[in-house]
């Protein structure tokens, strides 16, 4: 980039939601014997994420620079909200029922989808006299399990290959890994990206936290992060309430 042209920067943000079978288990602390889909971690997120997007869309600065996509995955990945500006009201689909937690499939899907999303966003924002530039994408990855596909644990090398393509090379995505109770600390740490001081954006929930409260605090933390990061241009996130940052050495 040089000073010949004036550049408009915009941010592509992915919220990736694990919709595997464990996310559809009811909250045991609710005391209710009847199965209510709203009383599951998935039900909470499906209710809270659209609200968060509506709140962000009310901010004239964020809705000007941010485009958001909601991606779900279990046996296979799917787009619940296509990548588009928050200025536009976009229908959010209900996730399909599935059982596995196929990290490799969703990470590969995002690697393939990213160039299409960039084209779409640039086209949507194209204006005479300005060059549209997309910043490194930000990924908020919410999961409660470990990589699992085809009836077995998914080998790390299988999904790490796609994770590498996503966070290195052309795309260079920034990944925040948010682990609900049941998630694997090591997996979260390997999935997340961080800074040069090896502090990664990987968070794990305390088992004592109420699942409903946790879902709320995760969505609030993502909303705050999008709000602060689009202002500063750099992805920053504080640990959601009821969660802690996973700390370990890069080689540990």
């Amino acid at each position, binding site marked *: 980039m*040089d*000073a*010949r*042209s*004036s*550049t408009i920067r915009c941010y592509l943000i992915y919220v990736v939601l694990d919709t595997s079978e464990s996310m559809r288990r009811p909250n045991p602390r609710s005391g209710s014997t009847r199965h209510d889909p709203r009383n599951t971690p998935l039900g909470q997120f499906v209710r809270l994420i659209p609200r968060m997007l509506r709140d962000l869309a009310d901010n004239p600065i964020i809705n000007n620079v941010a485009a958001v996509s909601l991606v779900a995955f279990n046996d296979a990945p799917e787009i619940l909200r296509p990548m588009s500006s928050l200025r536009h009201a976009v229908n959010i689909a209900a996730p399909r029922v599935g059982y596995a937690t196929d990290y490799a499939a969703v990470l590969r899907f995002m690697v393939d989808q990213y160039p299409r999303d960039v084209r779409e966003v640039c086209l949507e924002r194209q204006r005479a006299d300005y060059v549209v530039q997309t910043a490194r994408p930000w990924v908020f990855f919410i999961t409660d399990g470990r990589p699992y596909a085809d009836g077995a644990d998914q080998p790390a090398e299988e999904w790490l290959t796609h994770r590498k393509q996503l966070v290195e090379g052309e795309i260079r995505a920034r990944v925040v890994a948010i682990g609900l109770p049941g998630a694997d600390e090591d997996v979260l740490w390997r999935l997340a990206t961080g800074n040069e001081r090896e502090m990664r954006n990987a968070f794990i929930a305390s088992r004592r936290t109420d699942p409903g409260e946790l879902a709320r605090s995760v969505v609030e933390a993502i909303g705050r992060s999008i*709000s602060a990061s689009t202002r500063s241009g*750099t992805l*920053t996130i504080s640990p959601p309430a009821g969660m802690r940052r996973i700390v370990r050495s890069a080689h540990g």
Partner: protein
Amino acid sequence: MADLSAPAGAGGGGIPTVIVIVIVLIVLVAGVRLAGPRLAGRRSRAARAGVQWAFAPVASTLRRWLPAGWDARSGKSTGQAAKPQRDLLVRRLVLTPSRHAQLEPRLPRLAVISSGWHNAFYHGSAGSPRGGHLMVRAAAVRGVAHAVNAESGQDAVGTAWNERRKALFIVVADGLGALPRSGEAARRATNTAVKLYAAMDRSKDFHMFGRQLFHDVASDVKKYISAGRFDAATTLVAAEMRLVQSGAVISVCGVGDSEAWLLHDEQWRVLHHERGQGEENTTRQLPGYPKPLVSKRVRAPVGSVLLLATDGFAAALASEGSPLTRELARRWRKTPSAMEFLAHVDFVEDVFTDDRAVVAVWIR
């Protein structure tokens, strides 16, 4: 003479009553307009205002009938289409027209402003009015992005006149948004820079001195934020303008994504920038990177404008043209008033919402 009592259209070949009424009204209004100044001289202002008030609806109606470009006072066509009024917000309130030319104050030896919770601006001239001189306009505007989030602005701008060197020093600083108290670092860096420059010897070379200045400013900012136990950082871009025959010699050095531009003959040329050198929105900053990028010396002719700006403003400039560069090239042929300048710095464009600190110097 037409019979005014006759109904309209009556009287065979007589002049229609409506036309007669219109002619009478034109004569009355013209008379009042011409007599206005004399009335003001002889009678009270209240009496004059009363006469004008009484005829205002009639004059207003007549003005609507007159063709565009018609001067009602002289009764002649001006030969120009009526232009829409521009910049109404930055016109001064004139109670009594002044017989004096607008006064341009002498620039203070040191001046620093910042955006904080408000917009700020100042102006003045430096140098010798008989020889070459510099007209300075400076403004700091709190960005919309900060305002809607109830956060303070983080940019600062400053100037210093060094009489020993017969030179002007201008500087802008942009506190890093990722660190909430960076506005304090920007103000501190700007303050320290102008003070250091004001004490600079005549014999020193600015390029050499500039390196030392950035090093000293970085040390000072580091001490300041350590003492306050907070984290903050700022960009800093500075320029010296030395008056020479038929223009000025400009030296620029800086750390980070604030920029220096020269406008001459409606053409913009970038003198200093670091676009595309950082990942994401990251930029070099003080106190982290005390070594400035030093740009080549440039001789700018009389009529040029040197501009230093933080990225909230500079990002909208482009050497191959942008809406802002084109608009300013046209508007800055003449030095704008300080309030016009503030309005220009506060330009409206939805995609540019960051704080803006800008200083522009017209070489006269």
